[in-house]
């Protein structure tokens, strides 16, 4: 790779590999980087990754399949940026993403990443399911297409296609209906939000997705958007303005507290229940929203909210970011991040692990099963908990 092509050439050598980036806020251990926690070799720490990228850029190393896997093993949780004390910390992930962009340009990316991007290119979702099936999830719900309503409900690819996440999308829609919220959806006109595509370095595809969604928003005069997924929330809030799309974007947990407080929604009572909450990276570290989801959970009668040791800025990622909920580059181990997180949740004694992200939902529910914790702790999206209907 030519050095002149790499945007962060004047910065990447500044990583000293001091290792602060591995820690949570309270220094509890060196394992708060999901990729490092999974592999425990320095090559998979963030410092190791930056040094490898630099070696590739300067020609010291060739681009190999293994190098590509290491660079794609970062799940973009931002723990490193949160903990690194140095002045370039805000660009740590950008350095990784820029390297991925060059790998995409060279066509040298891990096979699951290639499939992920190809599916989105072809079908507008990573699952490879036809775009015309995007609105199948809401068949029995009488949800109106967006016309002149107050809010657009942006479902996202996970909520639209993943069978487990669909349940969360349906629960949230029911809540909106119960609260008589003025909302509509794009149906089959919605396409993938592009958040993961951006993180995976496919710059052209991000632009295409953003422009398609922005055109749909603008044609309908959409001003206010509620997302199911924090990943979509991040894309619409922080990426789309780059392409001329500026909207008032909310994650659904930012809408529910007002609906509850105003009496339009009545959370169920869950007597003698203990709930622990997993902060999704794209709501928490990426967008600093730690309070709203907890306000919703605290409104559930009869239950007690207890925190995991690693919460808020220190939350340990489920490992699903950067498309890894699909590409699964950190799977296959007792120390896969989702399994570690499931154990951390179980250690609190909680019987419910509440999430606010469809990726976390699927990652952690699978992990609970693999850990043999079924029957001990249930993974529930906050929308499902407030809706009160059991997962189908």
């Amino acid at each position, binding site marked *: 790779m030519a050095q002149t092509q790499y945007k962060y050439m004047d910065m990447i050598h500044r990583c000293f590999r001091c290792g602060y980036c591995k820690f949570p806020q309270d220094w*509890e251990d060196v394992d708060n980087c999901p990729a490092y926690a999974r592999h*425990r070799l*320095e090559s998979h720490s963030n410092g190791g990754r930056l040094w490898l990228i630099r070696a590739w850029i300067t020609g010291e190393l060739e681009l190999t399949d293994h190098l590509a896997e290491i660079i794609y093993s970062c799940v973009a949780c931002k723990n490193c940026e949160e903990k690194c004390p140095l002045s370039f910390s805000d660009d740590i992930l950008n350095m990784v993403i820029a390297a991925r962009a060059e790998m995409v340009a060279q066509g040298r990316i891990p096979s699951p990443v290639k499939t992920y991007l190809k599916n989105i290119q072809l079908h507008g979702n990573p699952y490879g399911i036809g775009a015309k099936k995007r609105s199948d999830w809401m068949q029995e719900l009488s949800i109106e297409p967006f016309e002149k309503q107050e809010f657009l409900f942006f479902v996202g690819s996970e909520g639209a296609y993943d069978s487990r996440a669909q349940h969360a999308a349906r629960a949230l829609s029911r809540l909106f209906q119960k609260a008589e919220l003025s909302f509509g959806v794009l149906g089959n006109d919605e396409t993938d939000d592009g958040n993961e595509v951006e993180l995976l370095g496919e710059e052209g595809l991000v632009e295409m997705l953003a422009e398609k969604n922005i055109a749909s928003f603008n044609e309908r005069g959409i001003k206010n958007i509620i997302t199911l997924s924090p990943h979509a929330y991040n894309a619409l809030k922080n990426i789309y303005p780059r392409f001329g799309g500026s909207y008032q974007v909310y994650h659904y947990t930012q809408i529910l507290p007002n609906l509850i407080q105003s009496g339009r929604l009545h959370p169920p009572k869950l007597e003698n229940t203990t709930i622990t909450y997993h902060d999704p990276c794209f709501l928490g570290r990426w967008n600093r929203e730690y309070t709203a989801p907890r306000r919703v959970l605290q409104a559930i009668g009869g239950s007690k909210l207890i925190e995991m040791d690693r919460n808020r800025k220190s939350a340990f990622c489920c490992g699903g970011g950067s498309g890894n909920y699909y590409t699964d580059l950190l799977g296959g181990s007792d120390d896969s991040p989702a399994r570690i997180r499931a154990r951390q949740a179980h250690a609190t004694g909680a019987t419910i692990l509440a999430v606010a992200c469809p990726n976390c939902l699927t990652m952690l529910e699978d992990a609970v099963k693999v850990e043999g914790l079924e029957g001990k702790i249930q993974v529930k999206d906050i929308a499902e908990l407030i809706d009160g209907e059991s997962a189908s």
Partner: protein
Amino acid sequence: MDSIYAALMDIVGEDYVSNQTEELFTYSKDLGTSEPQWPDYVAAPKTVEQVSRIVKLANEQKLAVVPLGGGLSLAGLALPLRGGITLDLKRMDQILELNEQSRYIVVEAGISHGKVTAYLHKHAPRLMHSEPGAPAAATIGGNLAIHGQGDLAHPYGFNSDMINGLEVVLPTGEICRFGSCAIGNDWYTLHPLPDLQLFLGWSGCTGIITKVSLRLFPCKKFQEQDLFIVQDENLVPEIIYEMTHIGMAEDIMAISQEIPPPFNRLHCILVNISGDSKEELEFKRQLIFDGKLARYIEDGVGGIGAVGQKIERPQVSKTSDWRKGGGFEYVGSIVPVSYYPECYRRGSEISARHGIPYTVLGRVVGSSHGMMFSWTYAFNRADEETVRHAREALHETDRMVLELGGTLWKPAVFGQKLVMDRMDPNTLQMMKKVKHLLDPNGIMNPGNWEVA
């Protein structure tokens, strides 16, 4: 498949061994100015039994074994100078026992200092261990292997003086324990059994430290850092002598650095004090400032820089970003406190010769029994010329330390040779015999402390 790779995989599991270029590259690099040295394999054991099996395998294969902790010595002490297996010990990170009453904690040696600090803060807030100035990822075992010091050096000495017991995998693979734990007792003392201390400060050349009983010390409720500043470097030793006489401080450091400019040529004496009450803290502050430092203020040769600054633990270092170059290395030495003025003057001259803003630091060890004095040379990792200058400055400093009568601390191979050149021949021969006795195949971190 490579048979050694297969054997390592059998020992530590597939996920924790590699002979792929990317891992070998990563472990070939030190954070300082050392040239890369490539291992043939990298393995990350989880248990002492796995370490033992790997060492036995290495003896069979006559392969070098290089133990690695946090990799933060900056002096290339965990670089595989003769290839072989780099053992990343950071998976051995468990806390095995906390005994509050007897004030010790037993840990696996790959645990980070940050984890120990966090654990004590949460589970035993009235206790602390001596935390080194290195980043929090530095390991307990690694720090002992280099005779580290920390923020309790003034009252209690070197970190390697603060242990109650050790478990070590010998270079031939046997697992040995030292101290009360060796006779099946708890890990409460290293003494009074016959002295077999052959592992501390050896940079892993005589064995792999796998478990440590660390002494803990009272952690008082209120802690603060105070700063006293003088311009005349010759005053520093007497000020330190006076302050160590009253013994009120937990840590005393003198720092001088060219950047930022307002501090250039000034000597900042940082004093950490603590108390279980505000009254105790105030009492100590008065003894130090009113009792010992007031006269320097009255004479117009000293001033108070700050009082009551918060102490950050673990300490966060931004030294590597000073020149926005991502690199620095320092020469450390143990010298009498009286050497401070000369160390400072000579160090700033060396820095000037190499175009590097000078940074020197002296940390008091014991009651003025000694001082760890360091000269830091920052470089730009992307500019080979600055790396060369830093390397040359380091070598000059190594020579200067020995000319002054100082003793190099955790020297790189270059400095080790200088030390051994000056070493009493009988002592040198004993080092050689000890090394050969313990490590007949010469597999443990070869190239370090190697007597010709």
